């Protein structure tokens, strides 16, 4: 073969380039991922899982939960927002004039049309969103100008996107969230909802257990299979029965002298589900946690 060396080198370069791109590059970029800190808080992220929750990840994997559930929240954009929360003793018209007079400040110029336009039709009800967009300088300048005149405003960073509107997440998922997952159960099909935040959405272990045993006893039209094999249906040893037995609605309950108790696997899976709480703002995925009602 006359061009053997050329063919060999070409194949080597092609394979080497894809190894570089798919293996070495990502390893270099994220291989050193460590526990990090939550924004504006002394806490670490991600928190260590309890033993039961760590075992629960293997149960999650064994029953193929990731075939229908994802653990990844997408985010389409982010916005810096400033909300007017209290007018103090100002009148809406005064405030409108005051804002108008602020618009000669160079930092506010790029947003002047949006802000003034928002207040045009405004009748004085608070809270009102004064500005929502990319520009952090607009927000901080405006907040600085509002404070001395006795008007209260709240500044926040919000994550935007369909998943966040659905309440499936508070921000996008990032590599740090999966630090203790082995293997990572990202999932790629959403026959069921995303579970990144399920520990915050349904923080009750009994709710999780009942939902695993009889999904349709909680969500009427759920398509989730009932994982009966995670539970033991047994005769009651006496009244009132085991304290661990599920409290089920009549329609789903076994015969009167029987009870449904979760196995160790069920409790581990529930512990794992409760540990899924991607609710911490991080440097790479910032947002302002909602503390008070707006």
């Amino acid at each position, binding site marked *: 073969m006359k061009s053997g060396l050329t063919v060999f080198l070409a194949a080597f370069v092609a394979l080497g380039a894809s190894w570089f791109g798919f293996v070495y590059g990502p390893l270099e970029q994220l291989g050193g991922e460590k526990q990090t800190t939550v924004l504006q808080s002394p806490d670490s992220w991600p928190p260590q899982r309890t033993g039961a929750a760590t075992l629960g990840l293997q149960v999650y994997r064994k029953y193929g939960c990731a075939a229908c559930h994802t653990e990844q929240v997408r985010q389409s954009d982010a916005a810096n927002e400033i909300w007017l929360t209290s007018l103090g003793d100002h009148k809406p018209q005064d405030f409108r004039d005051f804002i108008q007079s602020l618009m000669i400040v160079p930092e506010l110029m790029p947003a002047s049309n949006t802000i003034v336009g928002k207040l045009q039709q405004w009748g004085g009800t608070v809270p009102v969103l004064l500005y929502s967009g990319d520009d952090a300088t607009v927000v901080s300048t405006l907040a600085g100008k509002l404070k001395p005149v006795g008007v209260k405003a709240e500044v926040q960073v919000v994550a935007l996107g369909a998943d966040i509107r659905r309440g499936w997440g508070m921000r996008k998922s990032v*590599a740090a969230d999966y630090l203790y997952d082995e293997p990572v159960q990202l999932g790629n099909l959403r026959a069921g909802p995303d579970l990144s935040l399920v520990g915050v959405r349904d923080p009750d272990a009994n709710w999780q257990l009942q939902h695993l045993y009889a999904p349709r006893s909680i969500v009427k039209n759920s398509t989730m299979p009932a994982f009966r094999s995670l539970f033991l249906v047994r005769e009651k040893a006496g009244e009132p029965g085991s304290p661990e037995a599920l409290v089920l609605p009549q329609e789903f309950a076994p015969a009167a002298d029987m009870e449904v108790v979760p196995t160790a696997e069920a409790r581990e899976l529930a512990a794992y589900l409760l540990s899924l709480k991607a609710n911490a703002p991080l440097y790479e995925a910032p947002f302002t946690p909602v503390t008070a009602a707006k």
Partner: protein
Amino acid sequence: MSDQNKDQCNPTNGEPTVQHSAAPMWIIVVTLTLLFFGGLYLDSHGGWFNPKVYAPYNTAERLESFQPQSGAAAAAAQGKRVYEAVCGICHGNDGAGKPGQAPPLAGSEWVLTKGDNRLAHIPLEGLNGSLMVKGKEWTLNMAAMGAALSDSDLAAVLTYMRTSWGNQAGEVTPDDVKKVRDAIGSHLQPMNGDQLMKMPE
């Protein structure tokens, strides 16, 4: 079939050989154009392979502009951090104090004063002598733990004390701390309870 091809396929003329031909110019132009736009896209969306930069932020600068800058949450977190580093060792991270060593801060009348003047004197000057806390007498020798903290850190930590563990009192601003610090000047004088009581709240 032309005569030339006939010649090449004829086994008597020996093995056919691979011949070089230049790639058409249009393929080179299209490839370079695609590479150019790919490069532009990578430049504006790749975040220069920074592991902290994810879509939709695209660049480190844009991510930086979305970091929450201030607000009550930031001050509270700062207060907690400083408290646990400086005060919590003796007064406990739960503000319950340590018997015989440090009085409780949770529910303490010295923390829940109306104003913050008297409270701010304690970390800035220290304590020496007896002091009544929640109906119990303490003999204390506290160093001026707050003298080395900045105004904003001390204000954050005092605010944290006044708003944590069930305490509900007003916030302390860096300006308040600065006023007390200026009033003390260089006359550092650890005080006891009676001396503190003589000061305005």
